[in-house]
């Protein structure tokens, strides 16, 4: 029953919190979002210099050996600042796949570059027909001598426009929805036969649709054992859920606190609107939703650090359910309590709400994870 952080974790949290507070103002963030890249390469280099891009990886791989708790602390603070730099896509997802299943050569070639900030990456796992089923794949990889030939289509690949390489899921055997037969491959962004359609997402990030038309990769591009990639993707996505969920908790904290402050100062009928009982109760509910999410975030992080097991998966799904429900409640009420201002692009409130809405959909929504929780 110890919820305190050790010295290293506290230092990490302080460092990220300070950066977000002092160097990640909302107006600057908006300029970056509207830029061509959609994120700041300068800030990405700062992340690398501060060692944040290596927190997720083991010391043997050149990282700092952080676990789920460290990831939670970083992402919660990223959420407070609506950080748009592609930490999730590059470090947690694509980097995570290599961390869990990459060969020593793959780690040396790609992870080292991720950690020093010189390369960006993306995980291409979703397909239009699959919804949230990670095993539902029509993309295939067929053995051709010492190579694999990949054909198919990948949807909403986060950080697709900036990625130097992709970790792509493809079916090497089995039927369309079989868990067995899923394999992972590293595909460079200049691979012949790979085409992209880049676009912004609702929350200001960037994504791509990938078409793989006879993309040929060598055997050494295979990540993990052939046909055994489902477990890797499932693990990486659960890491991703913890990351975006933590981000959502940070978003909710800002929304709740900003709303309380606004209601204390905004006057109607000669008094602050925060004096109205019905609004007070709504704010109490917002606070409670945030605290419930935060509590389940702690539980999920602790379970993941204890080892990846059905209990950990269950805790992650419980967290995702709560974040989906709470995020919508807190976001919608923050917008409503801010009145007309809540809808405008100039105020940060709507941007947090949009991020929370996207997070609910990422990696499976409330319904999906409620079923998964019941099943596990």
């Amino acid at each position, binding site marked *: 029953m110890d*919820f*305190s952080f050790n010295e290293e974790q506290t230092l990490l949290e302080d460092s990220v919190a300070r950066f977000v507070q002092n160097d990640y103002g909302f107006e600057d963030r908006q300029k970056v979002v509207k830029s061509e890249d959609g994120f700041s390469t300068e800030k990405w280099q700062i992340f690398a210099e501060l060692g944040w891009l290596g927190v997720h990886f083991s010391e043997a791989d050149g990282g700092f050996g952080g676990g789920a708790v460290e990831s939670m602390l970083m992402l919660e603070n990223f959420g407070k600042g609506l950080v748009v730099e592609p930490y999730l896509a590059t470090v947690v997802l694509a980097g995570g796949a290599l961390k869990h299943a990459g060969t020593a050569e793959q780690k040396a070639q790609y992870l080292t570059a991720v950690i020093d900030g010189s390369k960006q990456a993306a995980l291409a796992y979703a397909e239009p027909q699959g919804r949230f089923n990670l095993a539902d794949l029509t993309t295939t990889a067929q053995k051709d001598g010492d190579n694999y030939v990949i054909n198919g289509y990948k949807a909403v690949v986060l950080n697709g426009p900036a990625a130097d390489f992709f970790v792509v899921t493809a079916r090497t055997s089995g039927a369309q929805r079989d868990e067995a037969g899923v394999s992972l491959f590293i595909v460079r962004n200049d691979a012949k036969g790979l085409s992209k359609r880049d676009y912004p997402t609702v929350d200001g990030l960037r994504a791509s649709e990938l078409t793989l038309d006879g993309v040929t990769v060598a055997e050494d591009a295979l990540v993990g054992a052939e046909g055994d990639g489902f477990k890797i993707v499932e693990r990486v996505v659960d890491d991703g859920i913890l990351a975006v969920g933590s981000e959502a908790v940070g978003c909710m904290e800002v929304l709740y606190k900003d709303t309380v402050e606004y*209601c204390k100062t905004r006057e109607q009928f000669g008094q602050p609107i*925060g004096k109205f009982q019905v609004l*007070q109760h709504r704010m109490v509910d917002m606070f*409670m939703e945030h605290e419930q999410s935060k509590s389940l975030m702690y539980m999920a992080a602790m379970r993941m650090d204890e080892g990846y097991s059905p209990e950990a998966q269950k805790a992650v799904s419980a967290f995702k359910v709560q974040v989906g429900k709470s995020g919508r409640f807190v976001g919608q009420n923050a917008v409503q309590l801010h009145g007309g201002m809540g809808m405008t692009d100039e105020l940060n409130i709507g941007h947090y709400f949009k991020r929370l809405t996207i997070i609910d959909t990422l990696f499976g929504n409330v319904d999906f994870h409620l079923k998964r929780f019941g099943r596990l």
Partner: protein
Amino acid sequence: MRRFAKQSMAQFSSQLMQSFSLLATKQTGIALWDDPTWRSCLLENNWVGASWPLSWGGPGWTSEQKFRWYRACHQSFEDYVEPPEIRDVGPCLQRWGNHRGRGLMAGITSLDVRWSLALFEGSFTPADFATKLASSWRLSGSKTQVRFALRADRLLVVAKQGEKFVLLDIASDTPGIEIAPMVGLAGDVTLAQIQFNDVLVTEEQIAGELESSEALRQLCYQTVSLELGRSGAIERQLVAARQQVEAGVAASAEFSSRLAELEIALQALVIMEKRVVAASATDVPSPIPWSLLQAQGLALQLEVGELVLDTFGYYALPYPDEISLHNEGPIGSSSGMTASRSMLRATEQVNYANLAGDLYDIAAEELLSGADRVGMHEKIATE
């Protein structure tokens, strides 16, 4: 700590405790904490005043130990496990009792005397307090929602004397006292109304003094506050719901989904309770106002109660009191009959918990004022 948890859980799961559990749900009119064997058990295990510090005569447990004990109790029993002299009267005398009042603690900790705290009135505004001790040492007025007054040997009465509030130690059979039962939603009689008609008291019966209306407010909060570990009660109810769903009686996607949602909400509540406990152990501000934690727990208890009732369908309808009066077996399943009772009791608990002020209003006051949240609720819960 783990050894302690195992020990307490093992004791609760023993045969002896199971018999108490049965006893608690039987229609004997005896609450668990009023059963002589259970009272002996409390004494023998040094569980009297489990939340009290050593200086009060309690075991002096850490916040975590208290949490585990209460949670284990709630997991095992529907009834309160501590008698009202321990829940209500002892803490009141310890905080506001005078020399004589504290002298009464010996009888309380030995469980020799049955007490009840007569505190609430129709209006909870201190200025409207109508139970008054006149200069002639005559006590007049009325009290309502007095918990377990019908079984009390003695009453600790809060009365207004001039501008101050005093605590009076009065035998319940003193001439001029009329105690009338208030039948609750579940058919239980746990509350009573008391009328004081010129009851003669002496100066020696003054057992303490509340120095201000703020102290009176604190006493009200203290009396209605629930201890940490309420999640144990919800867990017990959820087990019943899960059994119903898994047994196929109420197997449906709808029930499975509701069950999963409630299990997740329960997990969140457990972690929130643990965060409050952990904060109190390290002397840092509590992350969550106690009032809100109570409100959340009670709301969840009601939701689980609704789910349990729904899973039983029509067999939640039979009224257990009437059926047991005729010594007949259960109609449908006995669990269905107790489910409706649990739901009604939970509703009563919500009502009682809000007596000292709406929990949401209290939480809003704490949150909006930005006050340090080591408020009175946390102190009550964790001390």
